[in-house]
């Protein structure tokens, strides 16, 4: 551990490498977290299957790549497939737990998470996979720092996707209906919004976002059936840290998490990566609690 720190001190340029890697992954985390916040805000269901939807998207991209479709071209069909899958999930499961207490919905999505990850394991096997994008590497600072071009492309795509989503939410009729339902479902219903449809759309759009994020992750990193839970936890860390409905916060927290993970992987070793994410989750929950305690004292 001290060796790695000393190495960072001796060659500060390595920091640039960690930041580049962290930011490019963090952008994808931001997409996943945005999807979670969307479903959370609109339906108040906390989707523990979020990361498994991401992995499923990644495997769909992998499957299409096996049939010679370039992963970037696969983004659209995968998102469409996941949208349909999200719709089915909503009809079968989510719809019935929206009105119930929050633990029921949490447990139902946990059941979904188990089902999806085990099905992926059965179909694709437990090996770690990646999708070849065929792009090269970019060297900077005389070869001290290098980054794969696909990471830059994925980063750009994340920005485009996020911008498109925000525009869709702000401008389109459907986006307005979704936002109205998130603010006050009852009032929206009174004013003629079909809230059931809005819930279904929110969940399906989230599944589509996860699908796209999964394909990107498969190209820049690796996918494995059981990595899903880590993405769920990451998304929770990000949304809890940023707060619901705080888009700049989500983006900042996601990029920060990406960078923090790179540093912990470099300094502590790769076996601590998952522990870091979960540790951050606990830290943020405790921090939230301390903030709440402060509020309570003010009330007293």
């Amino acid at each position, binding site marked *: 551990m001290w060796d790695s720190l000393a190495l960072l001190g001796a060659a500060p340029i390595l920091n640039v490498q960690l930041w580049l890697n962290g930011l490019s992954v963090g952008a994808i985390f931001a997409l996943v977290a945005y999807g979670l916040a969307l479903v959370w805000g609109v339906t108040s269901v*906390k989707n*523990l299957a979020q990361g498994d939807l991401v992995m499923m998207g990644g495997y769909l991209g992998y499957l299409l790549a096996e049939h010679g479709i370039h992963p970037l071209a696969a983004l659209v069909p995968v998102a469409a497939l996941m949208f349909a899958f999200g719709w089915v999930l909503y009809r079968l*499961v989510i719809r*019935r*737990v929206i009105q*119930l*207490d*929050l*633990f*029921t*919905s*949490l*447990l*139902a999505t*946990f*059941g*979904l*998470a*188990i*089902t*999806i990850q*085990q*099905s992926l*394991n*059965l179909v694709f096997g437990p090996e770690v996979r990646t999708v070849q994008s065929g792009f090269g590497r970019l060297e900077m600072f005389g070869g001290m720092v290098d980054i794969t071009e696909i990471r830059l492309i994925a980063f750009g795509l994340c920005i485009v996707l996020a911008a498109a989503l925000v525009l869709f939410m702000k401008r389109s009729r459907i986006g307005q209906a979704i936002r109205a339902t998130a603010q006050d479902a009852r009032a929206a219903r009174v004013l003629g919004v079909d809230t059931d449809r809005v819930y279904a759309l929110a969940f399906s759009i989230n599944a589509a976002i996860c699908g796209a994020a999964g394909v990107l992750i498969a190209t820049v990193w690796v996918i494995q059936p059981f990595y899903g*839970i880590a993405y769920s*936890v990451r998304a*929770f860390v990000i949304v*809890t840290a940023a707060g619901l409905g705080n888009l700049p916060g989500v983006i900042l927290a996601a990029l920060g998490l990406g960078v923090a993970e790179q540093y912990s992987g470099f300094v502590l*070793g790769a*076996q*601590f990566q*998952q*522990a870091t994410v*979960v*540790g951050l*989750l*606990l830290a943020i*929950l*405790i921090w*939230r*609690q301390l903030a*709440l*305690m402060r509020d309570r004292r003010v009330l007293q």
Partner: protein
Amino acid sequence: MTRRSAVLHLALLAGGIAAPFVFPAHAVQFAVFWIMVLFALTWDTMGGQMGYNSLGNILFFGLGMYICALTQIGMVYDIAQYTAANGAIRVDFTDRQYFVGLALGVVLAALGALIAAALLSWVLFGLRGPYFAIGTLGAAIAAAELTNAWEYVGGGSGIAMPVFPGAPGMRERFFYAACMAGAAACYLFLRWLYGTRFGLAINAIRDDEDKAEALGLRTGRYKTVAWSISAFFLGIAGALFGNMTGFIEPLETAYPTLTFGIFMVAMALIGGKGTLWGPIIGATLFYTLREVTWTYLLGWQYIALGVLIIVNVVYFRQGVLGWLRERRPAWFA
């Protein structure tokens, strides 16, 4: 205790004692059954009676398992050397060493888990509802990952447990008796506890925590004590299970969040949460179903588990006991 319930308890006791003698080949499976009963009961103390749904109670199980193992080994040997050898070192325990170590290990495991619950409750009980569930899940995963990376306790390659000194066949019966005693003690204790003021208090917390607090209940203390009770019994279960398996490692045996950790919840929900007998019925149904079908499902078992949980919480929320109560209210008069 009415006559009918006395007969029922005696019949269960007789059946429990007879089981390993009638089916000696399945003694270990029966022992695990009692562990499952204990799982469901302790989960329900929190989830059913108090309304705090923990997804990470398995943490105390694993903690107990490791504390017991380290006590047993540490009493006669150097732990670091033992774990570094990856099971190549076989220490021959004398009968006395083994049983004293085991007894001390179980006690320390129970106390260690209890203390851990008390400390963790300070951190986690400010969280309510789904945050609590996610926080406890996070704590369990973190514990598994940290143990996995900690070389001193064997890390991912685990620990080979001391060998039971008795004659062949004795080992299964011994641990069967210990597991059954643990589950029975847990049942009797909770049965008594739910009838006291404490039981009423944790039910009040489930129904409306803020009102309970406004009425002057020290909700924080009740929550801490309730979780510590769960942890105490889970620590014992972990210590016994580790010795019964003979080999422990963090991800699959000690902190199996996705198997035992989620079984607890599933069993309590299937039987009907918030009742004393619901978790026991749930554990019986779930475990029997699992043992009968598991090996025939050929890789589909976890998918079946996921589907079972979904179906359970979406379509059959009241559980077996709740369903019976709706259908046959007279039985519960």
